[in-house]
């Protein structure tokens, strides 16, 4: 298992899990339209999600647009 934080909450993902699974875990819509992801403060383009394995202790932020400003 890999222990990560997704949107501030502790989660255990199966060993070898990749970023797209974390995005799904966060509750993002299928395909992640309108969604962006940062791992440890660095943006990861949508195209790289499935090729990005998660490492122990990483902070994953899964964001979308909301009313504001």
């Amino acid at each position: 298992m890999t222990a990560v934080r997704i949107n501030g909450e502790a989660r255990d993902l199966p060993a070898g899990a990749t970023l797209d699974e974390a995005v799904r875990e966060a509750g993002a819509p299928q395909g992640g339209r309108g969604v962006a992801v940062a791992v440890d403060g660095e943006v990861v383009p949508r195209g790289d999600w499935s090729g990005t394995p998660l490492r122990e202790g990483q902070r994953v932020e899964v964001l979308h647009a909301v009313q504001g400003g």
Partner: protein
Amino acid sequence: MTVGFELGGRSFDSRLIMGTGGFRNLELMAEAVTASGAELATVAMRRVDPAARGSILEVLEGAGCEVLPNTAGCFTARDAVTTARLGREALGTDWVKLEVIGDDRTLLPDPAELLEAAETLVADGFTVLPYTSDDPVLARRLEDAGCAAVMPLGSPIGSGMGINNLYNLRLIVEAAGVPVILDAGIGTASDATLAMEMGCDGVLLASAVSRAEDPAAMAHAMRLAVEAGYEARRAGRIPKRLLARASSPEAGVPELT
């Protein structure tokens, strides 16, 4: 009769940009955005909420309004830059309303951090629309840094105080080589009219409409107010005079007594 303007290399018919925060629900937001005639509306980037219903993106699309992601909630240049990049990734636009806050009670911008973030984002290819204070020197530095506009506040976000320092706004407008958009502090229609009369190219507001008793009605009032101020400026107002000037002829007055 209001003529559009160029912003970030594109043309807009409406000089009113809507913020989308503070509406009680998406339906009220949709009505108000439509009534405002705005073509551009800001959104914030926040954590995905699985429980959330409705998509603000579809609603704005339906209202014929493009999204402008902001960096609200960022207190450092670094966070603001990352948030801008997340907005670009999520929404497929390289435009950003740049906010770097320096104080959480007043939400006033941090001048040094704002300038640093603007320089970084311009270098990264963004069209940067910075929310700034009414400091004319900072506005100049932001323009020199390559920002596509300067967006000085009238007064703090959501305060509804209007324009606290007309003098600074005047200095900014006189010196600016990019569009000046009054951002933050508008409370009612006359504030927006005054901003346009002062020479602003546009107005950005949220709370004045979203938190009004009747958001759609206030949105329409703001639309008229921006047009009124723009037209009045172009029409060439009369100078202020310290004494009266009769509006009825002084000749031809009868002798009745």
